[in-house]
């Protein structure tokens, strides 16, 4: 019942904050959000799941109640966590709390609505990572869109309405494409399954001959089409080039706390779903399409990084860098090696923390200088040393400085994808590694211009020291990033591997090699 409790706390908190008067909302929301955070940390410490939840592993915090029957398919409230989803739940609750704290300064209108939506989004995110039944999962998956639509649309920048509608319609259409693909599989499986529970479907799809034909499509064609439909649906969320065009608009227009959530957690929904659906359920199709997918991943890494290099707005730089970093996740997933899938999952958490940190830093800089343009400021380190330090730490983590989470994650991914069984894996990995050079380029460039040198600000605002509640989230994130980078194995990678290895076990032989 722990996951239900977590979701219920967030929802009740959301409602409570929504009805509170504006002046109490920020502190109340922060206080309320500490409860799910503490609960999720407690769950992480007492976590006792083993193996992959979809492939017969022991599921932690499992609960299952019969809900609906659709024809011959049962739908149940089926919740549970494994080593893949548990860290992401903690990431969601942690970033929500920090994002709420980071909202105190910039959000100064309609506060109760803002914080209510943040908590509502937290509930939906926990639901996405916790649900093990397709229909329940889809309900939460779509429910995440609603608060984000409002967060961008109401509290966003100048072109917020355009960005909000674009985000909403783009990702909703992607959801429907994915939905159609998934139901193609369900109807193709016919009597092989009796419910929409993801473990049952995953195991049926991995059984030879279970997938039948549907209409004019034979089993092979059906599986291929379903894979492509689901891949496109999730790729929009990740985002993988060329499905990324909604992201810069949404990121740049969103208020900083929403950007933190968007980059930190919402993008992970896409890669999490890719791992759960495409790469766990249809490994043989993934193997057949490995080279094109890996190429898409590498293109995302390099193209995203080069787009970031071309920007002069700090927020756009960080936004495009997300496209680049999420490319590593794609590359790791398609490698189908121990370090590849495990590293990709680790990178989801690591990127969530680091991009959250960078967006929060940009937010603090914007709050005090009222500009995000690199050319408009210089020498900020003199005026706001803590923020500047945090920004440097975040940038180095992004570049993969050892003992920080980014290094561990990218190292795992590179090791994994170098050994991958698809053609040209070494070449593609080498190209992907070149992305780190570009990352160093744009981050060093922007730090040099904004933080160092003589102080100069071309705005009318006085640059002051940031408040305590602005910098606390930055410091907390740095602590997590360093902890995860120093003890990656003990803190997370052990649990992650435990859940990702079963994905490989049944398929490793067919890929012509061991783990």
């Amino acid at each position, binding site marked *: 019942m722990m996951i239900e409790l977590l979701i219920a706390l967030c929802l009740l908190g959301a409602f409570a904050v929504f009805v509170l008067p504006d002046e109490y909302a920020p502190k109340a929301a922060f206080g309320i959000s500490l409860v799910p955070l503490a609960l999720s940390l407690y769950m992480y410490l007492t976590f006792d799941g083993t193996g992959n939840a979809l492939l017969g592993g022991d599921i932690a915090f499992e609960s299952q109640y019969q809900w609906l029957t659709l024809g011959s398919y049962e739908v149940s409230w089926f919740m549970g966590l494994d080593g893949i989803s548990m860290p992401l739940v903690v990431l969601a609750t942690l970033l929500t709390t920090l994002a709420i704290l980071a909202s105190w300064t910039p959000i100064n209108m309609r506060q109760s609505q803002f914080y209510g939506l943040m908590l509502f989004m937290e509930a939906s995110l926990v639901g996405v990572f916790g649900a093990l039944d397709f229909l329940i999962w889809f309900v939460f998956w779509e429910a995440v869109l609603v608060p984000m639509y409002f967060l961008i649309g109401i509290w966003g920048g100048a072109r917020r309405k355009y960005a909000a509608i674009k985000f909403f319609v783009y990702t909703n259409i992607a959801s429907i494409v994915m*939905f159609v693909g998934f139901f193609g599989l369900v109807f193709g499986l016919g009597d092989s399954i009796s419910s929409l529970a993801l473990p049952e479907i995953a195991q049926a799809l991995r059984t030879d001959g279970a997938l039948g034909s549907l209409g004019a499509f034979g089993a092979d064609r059906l599986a291929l089409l379903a894979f492509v439909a689901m891949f496109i649906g999730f790729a929009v969320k990740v985002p993988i080039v060329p499905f990324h065009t909604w992201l810069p608009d949404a990121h740049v227009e969103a208020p900083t706390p929403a950007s933190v959530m968007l980059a930190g957690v919402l993008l992970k929904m896409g890669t999490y779903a890719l791992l759960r659906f495409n790469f766990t359920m249809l490994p043989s199709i993934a193997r057949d399409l490995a080279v094109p997918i890996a190429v898409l991943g590498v293109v995302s890494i390099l193209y995203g990084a080069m787009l970031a290099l071309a920007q002069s707005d700090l927020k756009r730089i960080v936004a495009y860098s997300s496209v680049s970093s999420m490319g590593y996740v794609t590359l790791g997933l398609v490698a189908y090696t121990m370090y590849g899938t495990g590293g990709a999952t680790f990178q989801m958490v690591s990127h969530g923390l680091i991009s959250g940190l960078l967006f929060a830093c940009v937010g603090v800089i914007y709050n005090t200088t009222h500009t995000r343009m690199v050319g408009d400021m210089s020498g900020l380190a003199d005026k706001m040393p803590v923020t500047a330090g945090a920004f440097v730490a975040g940038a180095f983590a992004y570049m993969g400085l050892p003992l920080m989470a980014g290094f561990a994650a990218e190292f795992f991914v590179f090791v994994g994808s170098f050994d991958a069984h698809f053609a040209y894996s070494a070449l593609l990995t080498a190209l992907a590694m070149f992305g780190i050079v570009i990352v160093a380029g744009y981050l060093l460039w922007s730090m040099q211009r904004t933080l160092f040198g003589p102080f100069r600000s071309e705005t009318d605002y006085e640059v002051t020291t940031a408040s305590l509640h602005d910098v606390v989230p930055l410091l907390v994130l740095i602590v997590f990033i360093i902890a995860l980078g120093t003890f990656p194995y003990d803190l997370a990678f052990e649990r992650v591997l435990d859940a990702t290895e079963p994905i490989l076990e049944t398929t490793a032989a067919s890929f012509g090699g061991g783990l």
Partner: protein
Amino acid sequence: MVEPAWAATAPVLVLVATALALFLVDSIDPESNRPRLLSGVAFVGALAAMGVSLVYLLTGVGVEPISLYGGQLVVDQMALFFQVIVTSVTAVVVLGSHDYLDSHAYQAEYYTLIMLAVTGMAVMAAAGSLAVAFIALELASLPSYALVAFMKQNKGSVEAGLKYFLIGALSSAVFAFGISLVYAATGTLMLDGIAEELTQGTELPGVLGVGLLMIIGGFAYKTASVPFHFWAPEAYEGAPAPVSAFISSASKAAGFALAFRVLVVAFPIASSGVQNALDWTVVVTILAVATMTLGNFAAATQENVKRMLAYSSIGHAGYVLIALAALTGTGDQSLILGAGMIHLLVYGFMNTGAFLFVALAEHWDVGRTFQDYRGLAEQAPFVSVAMTVFMFSLAGLPVGAGFLSKYYLFAGAVSGGLWWLALVGAVNSALSLFYYSRVVKALWIDEPDEPHVIESYPSALYGAVIVAAVVTVGLLPGLVLFDNVAFDAAAVLFG
């Protein structure tokens, strides 16, 4: 079972009694307007009728169909299911009308007309012969014409009433002519009698086919489906908003109840007589595609919220038609038809709620266009949340039960072998998010030109909107209580 057998018609009787009671109240004290008493009587009556039909439905009355008056009326689970829909919509509409009609003349007549119309709808759901079907259809329609034109000082309202009446009269004629052709081909008006005749085939397949086509035309009119939809945008826009809610939710559900029963019972698709005359699933499939697409595209181009809702209501008729189109013989028939019934149940609440929100906006004089709605959430956050729920649920996002009912419909279409129709529905549904979210955007995101001044918060209307929203959300997890009821109710029709 209920004893005596006629007690099975209790929901209808309660509605008639309420209409008569309203007459009585008005006769005793005709001069003074007693809005609270009148709306109270109507509300209690509608609620009682809903309670009775719900209790009957859940206690299994009509699992074994109860045939009354020589089979003219058939009370079965399906009839009761639709009576729950129409009476619950009526209850919410009456609650919302109380404030809307504030200080308006002829309140007793208004509520009486509503009660008489809903009586007709309740009978439509239980019609056992084409004669009863026609009479019930007229009983539901005639009060509706007057209700649409109720604001007789308002030019739009009168014009809408006239348009509704003219097309209604034409459609009635078409429907009646269709009935006479079917009678010519089969020699009976009883639904099961027609089916029996058709098992031996008919000597006049052409006459039967044309008759069936004209009957489908009658249904298309009542459900506002293409090509008999032209009255709907005008009537919904011109009518008082609670009446728009009433007609677009309850009347549409009743039309579908009749269509389901007549087509499934009297013209079973497997029967050779029907196959020789007209494969109506093909006709309905074409209607479904045309209705969905036209409704959604037209809704996307509207500037007026009420008109947008009217066109979206046409689009939703198209979704429900999928349930009839998919009755091709493959797939679980009762599952497919049950999906349509569930969608109508959910739609009853979310669509009524949306129109009542429009009623609230009219009550506040904020206007009817998207532009006028800008920034309204600032003044009325709770109903705006409710409206957001209605819009997203209508669009099929899983914040309300609209997601699940659409999912049932599309899954039904796939199991009937019409996966491409499900795809058309899904694409339409995705498109609809664009125009539904415009309302949400106007309410929450856009800034008003000048701040809205809202003087009063009419409690009954406000409450009605909130109730509709709570039910819309509550049905998402709560549908588990109803889905099997709906499937079982649909199964009754297939014997």
